[in-house]
């Protein structure tokens, strides 16, 4: 039984990692906004996770572990080079094209741009808790900070996002204030089928 144990572990790890790819892509996309840069980031994170597989304990939370790798990668790359304080229009268009629902783009694009106005730590906390399905405790482990810090970041992010959408307070011209929030409300109503 001792023979081939390593490759059996590798195979189990690989399968679990492959199953997480869609989630890594989603985390990367919402974190950095640009679809192409996001896939590069997700691929780097996937490869880093693979290379570090010996240090991963099977049966623990692999999703949280890979998300932690991805966000660390995101911050180290950001420190190194592509600090993008301004919204890159080309990147925004590429991201837009990835959207299928004919009615969703308006609201989703507004949300995407409003997300980019948030400080990185707030955006990250909100995504993990609000979309990634992580508990505050898990998000705190991923971000390497205290649970209370995550909670306050999430609540500040929610308030800031709401305010930005209400005011149209982000880098997009030609869009009257309040329209973004209207689009989001309308889309959310459709989704939940009235309230």
């Amino acid at each position, binding site marked *: 039984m001792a023979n081939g144990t*390593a*490759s059996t572990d*590798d195979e189990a790890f*690989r399968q679990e*990692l*492959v199953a997480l*790819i*869609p*989630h890594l*892509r*989603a*985390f990367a*996309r*919402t974190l950095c906004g640009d679809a192409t840069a996001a*896939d590069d980031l*997700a*691929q780097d994170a*996937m*490869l880093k996770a*693979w*290379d570090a597989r010996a240090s991963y304990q099977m049966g623990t939370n692999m999703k949280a572990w890979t998300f932690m790798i991805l966000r660390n990668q995101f911050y180290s790359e950001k420190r190194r080079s592509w600090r993008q304080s301004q919204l890159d229009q080309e990147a925004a268009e590429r991201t837009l094209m*990835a*959207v*299928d*629902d004919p009615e*969703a783009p308006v*609201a*989703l694009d507004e*949300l*995407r741009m409003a997300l980019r106005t948030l400080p990185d730590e707030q955006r990250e906390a*909100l*995504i993990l808790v*609000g*979309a*990634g399905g992580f508990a505050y405790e898990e998000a705190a482990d991923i971000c390497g900070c205290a649970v209370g810090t995550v909670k306050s970041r999430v609540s500040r992010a*929610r308030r800031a*996002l*709401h305010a930005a*959408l*209400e005011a149209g307070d982000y880098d997009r011209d030609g869009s009257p204030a309040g329209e973004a*929030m209207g689009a*989001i*409300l309308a*889309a*959310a*109503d459709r*989704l*939940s089928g009235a*309230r």
Partner: protein
Amino acid sequence: MIEQRDPTGRGSESRDDAAIDEARLRQQAIGVKLRQMFDQVVGEPVPDDFLEILRRADERAKGGS
């Protein structure tokens, strides 16, 4: 024991309640859209290069051991 608040007497509070409800609804709507944005990407087919990169890394691991 005196019941201080009349459960039917909404009066002046109703405007505040409505505003709070509205704010809550808006926060929920943002939450729904945020999840939708995330789930939309989760639902996309994984580009081939991901599996290709992993396959190559896997082969390196097998070849190296």
